[in-house]
């Protein structure tokens, strides 16, 4: 009973929100949701799969560039065509990068993903593709149209918000299903004890690669909507700085649940917004607050949940899923 209560209240609040707050905040929350999708995508690799990736911004940015490149001049692109194309491009990049990077472990994996991410960054930064270091505009927001009849125009902040909310819920649903499925358990087993999982008969490399590709594709979903919202793509979208920021969101939210990183993203983005408005030294203060959060709540802010609402045995945060990741190269 209580398990359903809180999500339903949050959902009702999310649906009611655009009707009660000014447009600026509708767009602000849309942006936060998009980053939440990206953080949840990254956590499939990091928290559930034990793969600390520093190239998820590259999947995010690549999908944004696909939208920019496929947008026809000043007319809106078709969402039903360009979104799958963008996610496929991100998935393909994840497949290639993952196939090579997953041959390494621990710190080496982090380094290899970082290197690949930077390669994609410089691909868009140093060549003439889509404006080089200047970036490129997405002049019109994509639309959902069937037979020339426009069903939904994302130029309306309200419509955009609800489309993003829909994909946010879809992401939570898909990731929850995946984590609870036999596949998800095999992925967690490979994270906790790779050698044992393999000796039981699980094809570790394939399991991790599938998870990495799914994670990359969902990061692409987020990147697509980010590009649509800002109306602009630039190489910084693919850079390691964003990858690291999203990793911070994941750590703030906690590695051990699907929705933790979403909360982490919301916390970080709201924190930035509040601090920016109140002090010039906001980056400094933000850093201090992040350190305090990480020290006080090693399981992420999601750890506050059972403290506030009482414990539900199944979601008890397991302290740190990660240590086995950086152990080095075994096997």
């Amino acid at each position, binding site marked *: 009973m209580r398990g359903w209560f809180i999500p339903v209240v949050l959902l009702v609040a999310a649906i009611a929100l655009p009707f009660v707050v000014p447009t600026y905040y509708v767009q602000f929350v849309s942006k936060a949701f998009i980053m939440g999708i990206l953080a949840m995508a990254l956590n499939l690799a990091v928290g559930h799969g034990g793969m600390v990736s520093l190239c998820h911004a590259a999947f995010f940015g690549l999908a944004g560039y696909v939208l920019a490149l496929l947008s026809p001049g000043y007319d809106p692109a078709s969402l039903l065509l360009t979104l799958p194309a963008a996610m496929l491009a991100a998935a393909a990049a994840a497949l290639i990068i993952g196939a090579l990077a997953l041959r390494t472990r621990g710190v080496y994996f982090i380094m290899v993903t970082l290197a690949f991410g930077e390669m994609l960054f410089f691909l868009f930064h140093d060549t003439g593709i889509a404006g080089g270091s200047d970036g490129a505009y997405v002049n019109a927001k994509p639309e959902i149209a069937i037979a020339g009849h426009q069903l939904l125009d994302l130029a309306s902040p309200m419509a955009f918000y609800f489309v993003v909310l829909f994909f946010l819920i879809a992401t939570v649903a898909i990731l929850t299903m995946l984590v609870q*499925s*036999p*596949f998800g358990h095999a992925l967690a087993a490979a994270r*906790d004890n790779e050698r*044992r999982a*393999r000796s*039981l008969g*699980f094809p570790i490399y*394939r399991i991790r690669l599938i998870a990495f590709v799914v994670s990359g594709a969902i990061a692409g979903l987020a990147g697509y909507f980010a590009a649509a919202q800002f109306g602009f793509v630039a190489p910084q979208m693919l850079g390691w700085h964003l990858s690291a920021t999203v990793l911070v969101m994941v750590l703030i939210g906690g590695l051990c649940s699907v929705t933790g990183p979403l909360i982490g993203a919301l916390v970080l983005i709201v924190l930035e917004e509040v601090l920016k408005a109140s002090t010039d030294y906001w980056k400094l203060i933000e850093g201090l607050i992040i350190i305090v959060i990480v020290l006080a709540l090693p399981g992420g802010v999601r750890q506050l949940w059972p403290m506030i609402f009482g414990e539900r045995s199944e979601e008890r945060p397991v302290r740190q899923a990660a240590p086995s990741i950086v152990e080095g190269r075994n096997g």
Partner: protein
Amino acid sequence: MADAVSRVALRASGLHKRFGGLKAVSDVSIDVHVGEIHAVIGPNGAGKSTLINLLSGELFANDGAITLEATDITRLPPDRRARHGLGRAYQKTTIFPKFTVHENVRLAAQARSPAPLRMFGSVRSDAAVRDLAAQAIARVGLAAQTQIVASDLSHGEQRQLEIAMVLATDPRIILLDEPLAGMGQVEARGIIGLISSLKAGRAVLLVEHDMDAVFELADRLTVMHDGCVIASGSPQEVRMHPAVRSAYLGDHGDAA
């Protein structure tokens, strides 16, 4: 041994493994028969662990061949060998410490189910996997502990869990690496009984230091020394073998 050929489940022939200049295993051949426990003994550094890693696929041999029933598995990685029916329990207990007993064993059963990587539906919904896990847990005597987190079990119970996980994968060949290590007398008795029951319908390869247990359990013995097989045969034959007495059992004169 000609009459026994048809019953050989796992056969290694002419295995070599070098680590740099060190010959960890040289020219080792071993047959493991269905319905038998084949023990490998030898002093520390004799190459027993390397041999078991070669058989399970965690190491690849520099030379030699391994066949599992009719399949050549010499170049197969560990997960493929497992799906061919090879189960392994580890020397250092390597359960999934954060999972409960039931989750550990269910995961093992899942590995052998027809769709081990199904991406939809909860793991809890698969009744066949759940039953297989429950049977394996009951078999090793952990039925009362199913909901306990594995890291909270005693050392002996973790060993039982380890064996339950191997059983849940329904293997035809089981490799046991020092299952009695670090175990008290009483706990060891239980595990010894469990091990002797494993050979029904299966082939078991056992590496163990406890000589009393080895001679109690083994139908066949192979003695290794400095990476080589120095004797192989029935426990009685091995016990009388002069090279064995000087190389190994000499230290344990009373036990032998």
